């Protein structure tokens, strides 16, 4: 058993950490406050090579393993949840389905651009009436000669409406069988297709500098080459994509927890009350000890789930456990980190305030904590 990172993985961590501190940290608060998505930072993440990390070079990727990608997400999330969201969603949910299920032609057409950071791609599963229960999908597609015609809408789609977002993968219902079951099919819908409208959602509490969209399909005609995978494979495509996505949401939780912990450590040693640093009060020292312990558990469990994936072993159960645990650790650590900051922790000038808000999505997005427990209990045979 070897539980040391390789020299390359350590170098990747250091490079992404340096990048996040140099390029993202100075802008994070301002972008959050203005709720502004930054195509510039997205492009810079692309130049560093953070998009398509796990793809072969022929599609513009870096040919790295899952763990390298997860470390990169962790390091960006340590500094800023919004940029980590753009990164994780585009890699796992945007690029993922095209890479795993696209035809060679589709891969050639989209992936090289999607790996540069000049273009993003959305993952359209959630609908107003289909959240945790994606089988409630109402958006439908009907064949029409060489075309499909899509009607319906999607909500909360990350990277779905920015100018540089060039399309989305969309789950639709293509048939209702006699026994009432539905046939789900996923399609590629490009920006600019007539009948495809994208509306940016405003008023988020968290990930304010990340792009979130509502997508509307109004007799939207797409050529039949835009079928992703096979007719009837839609649910499998979307749900297996979420299996992969869980690892990156877990990495966001781990990174947020690490960032919150470091801020709390620093603050506790600098802030003096009753004549000494507040870290000298045992209750605070113990909180920090607990945070450090949880973070180490979260980290090594997540890395093991990545290792399973990288070694072609089943990782569905471990992925769900990692997502559940890392996101819950992020919440606990961010909460105690705010507590250690006292009143200042509630002020926007202190980055802990942003981490505290940003982590809240992690127990909800890509399957709520309750749904992760459902997945895990099914793996346990319950």
């Amino acid at each position, binding site marked *: 058993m070897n539980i040391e990172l390789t020299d390359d993985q350590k*170098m990747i961590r250091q*490079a992404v950490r340096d990048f996040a501190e*140099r390029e993202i940290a100075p802008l994070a608060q301002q972008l959050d406050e203005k709720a502004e998505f930054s195509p510039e930072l997205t492009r810079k993440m692309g130049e560093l090579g953070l998009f398509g990390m796990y793809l072969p070079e022929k599609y513009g990727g870096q040919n790295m393993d899952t763990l390298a990608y997860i470390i990169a997400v962790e390091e960006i999330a340590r500094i800023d949840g919004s940029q980590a969201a753009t990164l994780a969603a585009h890699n796992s949910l945007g690029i993922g389905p095209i890479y795993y299920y696209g035809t060679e032609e589709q891969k050639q057409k989209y992936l090289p651009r999607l790996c540069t950071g000049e273009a993003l791609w959305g993952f359209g599963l959630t609908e107003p009436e289909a959240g945790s229960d994606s089988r409630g999908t109402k958006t439908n597609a009907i064949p029409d000669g060489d075309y499909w015609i899509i009607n319906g809408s999607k909500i909360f789609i990350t990277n779905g409406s920015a100018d540089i977002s060039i399309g989305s993968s969309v789950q639709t219902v293509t048939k209702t069988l006699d026994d009432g079951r539905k046939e789900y099919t996923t399609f590629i819908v490009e920006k600019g297709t007539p009948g495809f409208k994208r509306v940016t959602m405003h008023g988020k509490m968290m990930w304010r500098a990340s792009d979130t969209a509502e997508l509307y399909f109004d007799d939207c005609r797409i050529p039949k080459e835009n079928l992703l995978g096979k007719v009837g494979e839609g649910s499998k495509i979307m749900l297996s994509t979420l299996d992969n996505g869980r690892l990156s949401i877990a990495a966001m939780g781990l990174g947020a927890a690490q960032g919150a912990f470091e801020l709390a450590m620093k603050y506790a040693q600098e802030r003096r009350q009753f004549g000494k640093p507040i870290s000298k009060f045992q209750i605070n020292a113990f909180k920090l000890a607990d945070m450090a312990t949880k973070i180490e558990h979260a980290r090594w469990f997540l890395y093991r789930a990545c290792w399973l994936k990288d070694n072609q072993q089943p990782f569905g159960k471990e992925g769900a456990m990692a997502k559940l645990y890392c996101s819950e650790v992020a919440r606990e650590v961010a909460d105690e980190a705010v507590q250690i900051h006292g009143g200042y922790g509630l002020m926007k000038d202190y980055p802990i305030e942003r981490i505290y808000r940003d982590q809240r999505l992690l127990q909800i997005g890509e399957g709520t904590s309750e749904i992760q427990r459902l997945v895990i209990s099914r793996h346990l045979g319950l």
Partner: protein
Amino acid sequence: MKILVCISNVPDTTTRIKLSGDQNAIDLSSVQWIINPWDELALTRALELKEASGGSISSVSIIHVGNAGSDATLRKALAIGADDAIRVDAAPTDAYAVAHEIAEAIKDKNYDMILCGIESSDYNGSAMGGMLAEFLNMESVSSVSKLEIEGDELKLNREIAGGFEVVSATAPVVVIVQKGIALEPRIPSMRGIMMARKKPLEVVAATGAEALTEFVHYTPPQPKAACKMIDADNPAELVNLLHNEAKII
């Protein structure tokens, strides 16, 4: 033109340095190693020059004297963009020995410009570059904070007391650089990290150059005394402490 950058492997600047029991060696057990910050800037500048040269600078190589423990640092320099690396397989013992080993390893390689840092951030010798130039019988310019190439001529800014001077030089030359030579060290890209694995890292045997100096003893700096807070409206206590405890008034 071929550029060579000398790379020193030093403890991360945030490392807490501990001395061994007998105080004549440094305890390296939990040290994180990095590229000497000046050398990282030198490498960054060399790569900028190469990219802007339109092909007239054909390669940027790196050299290091050290044992295999330095390879991760050299891989990072390759990931940042150096084309190839040479490691002279010997523990560096002093600036003379290092300069001698480098001179022997490269004497037939015809580098046109050799960049060194002004000092290593660990032993701060500020000696290697000058010695290397002497061994190679090359000119050297020290304290260079700006480096431009105009045709066959190098334009160099040197920091001097109160300002800087501009000197020109022609290859071959050893340029000893300091802060300012590049804005920020380059961060290796993911592609660079993957490519670094495949770039040549040649390990050459040392000639066994002897050190001329020997470390006798280290003294760690005095730990900072704890700060005492005195109430603003109690000047008598301040005077008392300065007189009786600090004994400075």
